[in-house]
C-alpha cells in the first residue's frame, strides 16, 4: 500500500516538474526581454514585462527584484518596497537583492524621514 502511495507521489512530482520548469522558462523570457528594454531606457515597458513574469511565476525572486528596480525608477516607492521585500522573502541570502534593497531603503527612508527622536 505504502509503495503504491509513494509511486503516485513520485508520478505527481514527475508530471508537475515540467509544468514548473515551463513556468520558470516563460518568466525568464519575460525578465530577459524586460532587461533588454530597460537597458534602452524604456523603464515603463520593462516594468510591464517584469510584472508579467511575477504573474507567470510568483516564486521567481529575480523577477520581483527587477520589478522593484522598475517601480523605483518610475517613482512608485511603495510598490517598489513590496516587490523588493517579496524578492528577499524568496531569496533571503541573495546579496545582490539585499544590496539593491538597502540602496532603495536609503532613499525611501530619507524621503519619509520625519521628526523621529
Amino acid at each position, binding site marked *: 500500500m505504502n509503495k503504491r502511495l509513494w509511486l503516485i507521489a513520485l508520478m505527481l512530482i514527475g508530471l508537475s516538474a515540467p509544468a514548473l520548469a515551463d513556468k520558470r522558462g516563460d518568466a525568464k*523570457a519575460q525578465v530577459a526581454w524586460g532587461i*533588454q528594454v530597460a537597458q534602452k531606457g524604456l523603464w515603463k515597458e520593462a516594468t510591464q514585462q517584469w510584472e508579467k513574469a511575477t504573474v507567470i511565476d510568483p516564486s521567481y*525572486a529575480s523577477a520581483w527584484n527587477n520589478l522593484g*528596480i522598475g517601480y523605483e525608477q518610475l*517613482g512608485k516607492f511603495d510598490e517598489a518596497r513590496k516587490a523588493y521585500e517579496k524578492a528577499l522573502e524568496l531569496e533571503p541570502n541573495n546579496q545582490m537583492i539585499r544590496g539593491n534593497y538597502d540602496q*532603495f531603503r536609503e532613499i525611501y527612508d530619507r524621503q519619509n524621514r520625519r521628526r523621529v527622536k
Partner: protein
Amino acid sequence: MTARTVVALSSLAIAVASAGCLSFYEVAIETPIRAKLDVTPFSRVLVAGFVTGGSRSIDPNTETARLLRSQLRGKSELKIIDADVIDLVDVYDKKRSKAAPEKPDAVRIMDEKDVQDYEPILKDEKYWKEIGDEYQSPLIITGSVLFTEVSRSGMVSKLQSYTDSMGRPAYQERREFANLRGYALTPKFVFIDGRTGAQLYSEGFYEESLYSETQNTPALSSYFELMDKLLPSFLNTLSTQKIRGTRVLLVK
C-alpha cells in the same frame, strides 16, 4: 507572420540567449522624488528668517538662511529674493511687548519648549501677508532651528588593526566605553503663501552627530554636516529631485 513579429521574436530569442550568458546586469537608474508642494503659483521665493536658539557657537538664523538660499539658487526654478534675514525672536518679543534681555546677545531659546513659545509668529497670517505684500507675494520660507550641544556615554564599536599569525595586517572589532559629544539640529521648515499669509506646508526634522570627546569638531562644520543630511528632503519640498545610482538586474 509580419516583419514586425519576426523582428520581435528574434530580439526575444537574442535576449533569452544573452540572458543565458550573464545572470546579472548593472544598470544606472535615476530615482525621481516628486515635489511635495505645488509651487507653480510662485515665481519667487523669500527665505525670511527663523526662530532660532540653542548653542551660541554659531548664528543658526543667518547660517540657515544663507545655506537655503544658496541651495535653492542652484536647485530650484524659483528666483531667490535677497533680503535681510528677519530676527523672528525679536519681532515676536516686540509684538507681545516682552522686555528684551539685559544682555543683547543672551540666548532666549534654549530648548524645544522655548521654541514652542514662539510658534504663534509662524502662524501669524497677518504678519506674513504684510511680508508677502512687501516682496510682491512670493513663496515664503520660515520656521525654527534649534542647534544644541549634546553629550552621551555608552559602548561604541571600534576597528582595531593587528598583525595575524601569518604576519598579515588584519582588523578586529572592539567594543569600549566612551564619552561622546556633539551637536543636535532640530529644524522645522514652514512654507507660507505670500499672497495670503497662510501656511502651505511644514516639516520637522531631527539629526545629531556625535564625536569622540577627544575630537575637536567646530560647531559650524557639525552644523553643515547635519544640514547636509536633510537638505535633499527640504529641496524635495519645492522641486522634483533625481537621485542617481546603480542597481543590479537579475536573470537567474
